């Protein structure tokens, strides 16, 4: 989705699941843009770009693999594109299951796979209009 993920979207997602009364556990991961300091410059935002056609195929593949590995009821993934300011949310992963273990482990594995396998790049923008390319640890 374009731009930051608003906190109200997370709240709405939780609310929408209250009708699914067979669920007993949700796990949520939120990735936030960090105001890193590099050579006396602070990161003010990250500008995300992607290879959309490949990313959509890849997230579908990850989703299928996670669903076949864990007894999940549902899973939602949102990743920001474009500019996201420091302090704002750029990744939202939401997994739901009957019990906590599957929800937590599926959420964690999905985040790791997104970081490693999704063709997304981030340009860390500094206040002085300079930039550097984000590297995942």
């Amino acid at each position: 989705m374009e731009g930051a993920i608003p906190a109200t979207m997370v709240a709405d997602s939780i609310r929408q699941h209250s009708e699914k009364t067979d669920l007993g556990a949700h796990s949520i991961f939120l990735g936030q843009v960090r105001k890193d300091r590099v050579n006396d410059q602070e990161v003010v935002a990250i500008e995300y770009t992607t290879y959309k056609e490949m990313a959509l195929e890849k997230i579908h593949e990850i989703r299928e693999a996670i669903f076949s590995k864990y007894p999940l009821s549902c899973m939602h993934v949102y990743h920001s594109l474009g500019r996201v300011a420091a302090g704002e949310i750029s990744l939202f992963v939401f997994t739901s299951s009957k019990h906590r273990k599957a929800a937590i482990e599926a959420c964690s594995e999905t985040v790791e796979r997104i970081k490693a396998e999704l063709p997304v790049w981030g340009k860390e923008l500094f206040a002085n209009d300079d930039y550097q390319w984000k590297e995942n640890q």
Partner: protein
Amino acid sequence: MQVTIKVFGPLTDIVRENDLVMNDVHDTDQMVQKLGERYPALHGAPYNIAVDKNIIDKNTVFTGDHIVALLPPYAGG
């Protein structure tokens, strides 16, 4: 045969375009060689190559029109 080359992330600093087109290229090795001649800074830059969205690990012959992507290390999240 036409190969469209999509360039992403840090590699756009070198190539300065998002899409390149090559008409006279036989396989991925030859494509890399031609790109290196045009953009010497690509030599040594880390990236994978995807042909029609599939990452390849060996030289791949082009059999028709293809979309190739140069994919530097991912940095999502």
